[in-house]
């Protein structure tokens, strides 16, 4: 269930592909955009096939002209309402065509609206598995989980893989957030009970989820950064409740995220369908000693 990401050359193909689409207003990139960093995008709950998904896709494509992210993580609910070939076309292949044509990869996780056989779809890069890990560059490793069905084999696999991942940035992504201020869903406490001890034991740095149709940056919990990003195709307006968890929230429009990992810092920028920056910042990587201290602290 491991795969190695080969670096992607953008070049003329991307320029051509991106240029072919009517470009929306230019996105101002606030990220450092350094040469050797790992640059990614995040889209969650995207697969509606509606105009909102297409608008976000356009912004995503436009932002890649300035910030050449190598791949995108998908937070699940990649295909709402069915998985016929037409659904794949309308809800994935068409909106992201310029990115796909340029060779950019998408790494998907499964949501509750996804048929688990999406894992067989090569463009989702899941290697035929519900959960998997990959390492695009030397210092970052990603773990995709299936939070719809967190059974023992998956938990055992995660523990084994986290233990073997060494000193890399450890980034975990899956559909259901274990910290969320959502009024409709909220934090998944059962999942938290299973996953958080493993995250703490093996020093996970950041966790990304979807399911909630809004953006929320959670205040660091026991030394781990949590983001909810489920608004790349749907929005649930006014759904973020007032809780002490929130560092920043956005529930009035659609969004996607851009992330840049350097050696010790994770930079992020959140962009709306109008190309406006909703949130941005730089988060330092906690040292192992800090993580140990924070893992027992009450947030």
């Amino acid at each position, binding site marked *: 269930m491991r795969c190695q990401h080969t670096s992607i050359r953008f070049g003329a193909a991307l320029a051509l592909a991106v240029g072919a689409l009517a470009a929306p207003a230019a996105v101002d990139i606030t990220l450092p955009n350094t040469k050797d960093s790992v640059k990614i995008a995040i889209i969650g709950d995207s697969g509606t096939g509606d105009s909102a998904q297409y608008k976000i896709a356009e912004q995503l494509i436009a932002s890649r002209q300035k910030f050449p992210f190598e791949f995108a993580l998908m937070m699940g609910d990649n295909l709402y*309402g*069915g*998985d*016929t*070939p037409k*659904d*794949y*076309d309308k809800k994935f292949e068409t909106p992201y065509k310029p990115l796909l044509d340029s060779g950019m990869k998408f790494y998907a996780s499964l949501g*509750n*609206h*996804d*048929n*688990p*056989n999406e894992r*067989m*779809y*090569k*463009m989702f890069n899941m*290697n*035929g598995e519900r959960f998997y890990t990959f390492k695009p560059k030397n210092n970052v490793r990603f773990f995709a989980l299936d*939070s*719809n*069905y*967190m*059974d*023992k*084999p998956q*938990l055992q696999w995660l523990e084994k893989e986290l233990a073997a991942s060494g000193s890399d940035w450890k980034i975990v992504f899956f559909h*259901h957030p274990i910290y969320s201020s959502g009024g409709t*869903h909220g934090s*998944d*406490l*059962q*999942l938290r*009970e*299973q996953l958080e001890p493993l995250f703490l034991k093996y020093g996970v740095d950041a966790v990304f989820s979807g399911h909630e149709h809004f953006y929320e940056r959670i205040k660091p919990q026991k030394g781990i950064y949590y983001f909810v990003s489920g608004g790349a195709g749907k929005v649930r307006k006014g759904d973020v409740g007032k809780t002490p968890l929130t560092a920043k929230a956005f529930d009035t429009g659609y969004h996607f995220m851009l992330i840049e990992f350097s050696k010790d810092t994770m930079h992020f920028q959140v962009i709306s369908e109008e190309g406006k920056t909703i949130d941005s910042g730089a988060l330092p990587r906690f040292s192992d000693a800090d993580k140990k201290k924070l893992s027992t602290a009450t947030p």
Partner: protein
Amino acid sequence: MTRFLAALAFAAVAHASTVSALQKPEVNPHAALLADFKERVDKYVELRKKADDSAPPLKETKDPAKIREAQEALVERIGAARAGTKRGDIFTPEISAHFRRLLRPELKEAGTKALMKDDDPNPESVAFKINAPYPDKQPLSTVPPNVLATLPRLPKDIDYRFVGKHLILRDVRANMIIDYLPNAIS
């Protein structure tokens, strides 16, 4: 000397059998039921494997139509191979009663029911029919980890899902209902 040793050996054997009689290991009273369930599921997996071997392979592809074709062909072949099976062939009345007992305490845990309801598909949209595909447009319920930990472990690509109060045993590769347990939870 020989007599002494024989007597000693006899005493030792007698002692051991007394001890083992007193310290009889605890037997799971439901072990037979669980073994029965496992056997029934394994039998299904064996049947699926044969159907899988003769159907167009469900493997990684860039073409979603091929995933669809493979899934549908698998449902067809499994259906043909299981002709004559009926509901309850896996969830027998005894196994069903045991599953309901297993689920009861877990569902009392705060938040478990709420979580299950959260992603619940519309029960009226799901045809409760064995060997039938799980409906395309319905979401799959999220099964809380504490509930999964309570239920017997399943082979790869067979899963439990809830639809309303009912528990479904589903073939993941075929996206098909193998059997179901009505009113698994109250």
